[in-house]
């Protein structure tokens, strides 16, 4: 029983990372109809910037928080730059060219990581003060895991508040509904695209920075998680935030328990689940139906 609870916890943790990535991907798609294939690379960059900021050593809680926020801001700025300099020029070209440049950017980022940090595995220790464990019966849960769950929940709540309760969120929802009308009403839609894209990149980088102490850093870590994030949004429905949440929990828990029962079959089963959901609902559980 306790084993199952622990497995559930590790699944939730994975779901949190997937949600941070999927929500950004979904928001960007909802607002500007761009499938950002580079999203996973922003996650990888977040982890590497965190690694650079902490010099790969253990830092205190404040240093840790600063490094996470710093990684988010730096990659958010990079996202804004990428959006204004390149992506904006190909919106008119449609999905073919959007896919092309966001795919090409993965190559650039992965090679840049190899040049700056070499292709070897990198590891980051847990921050000092958060490296202990909480004893639950016969098992120990790392404090860091619990902190992550709290931080992740806080970010998700903040995201929901921003979208549902602020003027900016109102604009985001309006843009997803009818971009042209919004632009006619005098809203600076291109700037909205830039801000959304930067925000999504920032979320992905924060996820990467938070994940850094738990995973080994490799240049291809971004494209690896990207496929799982795609599974999340395909299951939950692209463009829907609650869909991202449900999809993330399904995928995260599916992986956690799948590994418990059959490590080899966990991934194929996930794809099978994805296929079944697509047969029942081609746009995912909460996605908008085709117009």
């Amino acid at each position, binding site marked *: 029983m306790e084993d199952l609870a622990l497995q559930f916890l590790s699944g939730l943790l994975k779901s949190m990372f997937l949600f941070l990535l999927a929500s950004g991907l979904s928001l960007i798609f909802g607002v500007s109809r761009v499938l950002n294939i580079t999203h996973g690379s922003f996650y990888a960059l977040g982890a590497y910037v965190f690694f650079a900021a902490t010099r790969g050593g253990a830092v205190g809680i404040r240093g840790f928080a600063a490094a996470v926020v710093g990684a988010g801001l730096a990659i958010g700025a990079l996202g804004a730059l990428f959006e204004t300099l390149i992506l904006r020029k190909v919106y008119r070209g*449609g999905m073919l060219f959007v896919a092309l440049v966001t795919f*090409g950017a*993965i190559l650039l980022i992965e090679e840049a990581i190899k040049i700056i940090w070499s292709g070897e595995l990198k590891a980051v220790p847990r921050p000092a003060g958060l490296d202990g464990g909480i004893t639950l019966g016969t098992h120990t849960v790392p404090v860091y895991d619990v902190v992550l769950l709290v931080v992740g929940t806080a970010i998700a709540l903040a995201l929901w508040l921003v979208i549902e309760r602020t003027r900016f969120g109102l604009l985001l929802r309006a843009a997803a509904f009818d971009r042209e009308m919004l632009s006619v009403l005098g809203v600076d839609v291109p700037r909205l695209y830039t801000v959304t894209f930067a925000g999504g990149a920032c979320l992905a980088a924060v996820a990467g920075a938070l994940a850094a102490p738990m995973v080994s850093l490799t240049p291809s870590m971004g494209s690896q998680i990207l496929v799982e994030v795609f599974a999340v*949004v395909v299951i939950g429905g692209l463009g829907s935030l609650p869909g991202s949440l449900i999809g993330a929990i399904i995928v995260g828990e599916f992986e956690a328990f799948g590994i418990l029962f059959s490590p*080899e079959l966990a991934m194929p089963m996930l794809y099978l689940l994805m296929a079944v959901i697509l*047969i029942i609902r081609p746009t995912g559980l909460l996605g908008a139906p085709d117009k």
Partner: protein
Amino acid sequence: MKIGLNRQSLLLAACAIALLVLPAFAPIRYVFLISELLIAILYATSLNLLMGYGGMLSLGQAAYFSLGAYASALLTTRLGWPMEAAMLAGPLVAMLGALVFGVFIVRTSHQEHAYFLMLTLAFSQLVYAALYKWYSVTRGDDGITGITATGLLGTPRTYCYFVFVVVAVCIYALRRIVDSPFGTTLQAIRDNPRRAEFVGLSVRRYQLLAFVIAGSFAGVAGMLYAFFSGTISPQLADWSASSRPFFANTIGGVASFWGPAVGVLVLEIIDTQVGRFTEHSLIAVGIAVLLVGVYLPQGVVGLLTGQGRGAAPAWLRRLTKRRN
């Protein structure tokens, strides 16, 4: 201005004669290069059936390439099938794979091609994971070694001729397919899926058929590659392997039948020339991709034939037009 039929035929004939003469006399490393490029051209052209003619953007063509390669390799090395039978079976397995995955892929919502992109990538990563983890069959990361062509095809020069003949036949078949009523219908669906549906076409069925055909020809390329290289590994199915034909198509130009072939040559030039200075030649590929995306939507073929950005054909504008 369009390249006239005559000039294009002349160019093709010149290429064919060069490819008939060169493998017999050229230094052996060029013989290898020719085989490799021909295989890459077939691989990229198979994807053009989807991207250029079907308006379907696939990030997972490597799945079918590697299925063809692994199936024929496993059948000869592990099960001792004769080479000829394995060569025929490889593409059939790729076709089957494309059919099974394709059923789900074409079923999805087609908004902005996003689901299509995500699913093709996801299924190719599934193939990658299977090749990587199913050690007892695929030998995982060790890959499969000792795949040899035997008999008449046993030397690099004769194998190069074999590749030439197979690729030429396949390219001819693809050309016939895109010019056939099926190809025309596919282009009609690409131009306006809704109208195609209203006139009674089964859009999904046509798209599935195109997907299976493209997968099968990618499987032929994979089979040719397995016997050419002798060693294959799961890397063949990774997303970065899928990016090659995708980039070849867009760099060369999806609006033209020969665009992917031109794109393969451009990528090869970038690799070898930049590769002389640095091992990070992928940076140059990435930059080339961004430049083409921003400045050359018609690709290099568009540049060569003098069609600038403004002259994009109506269907390309429509395929790429942003719908609200």
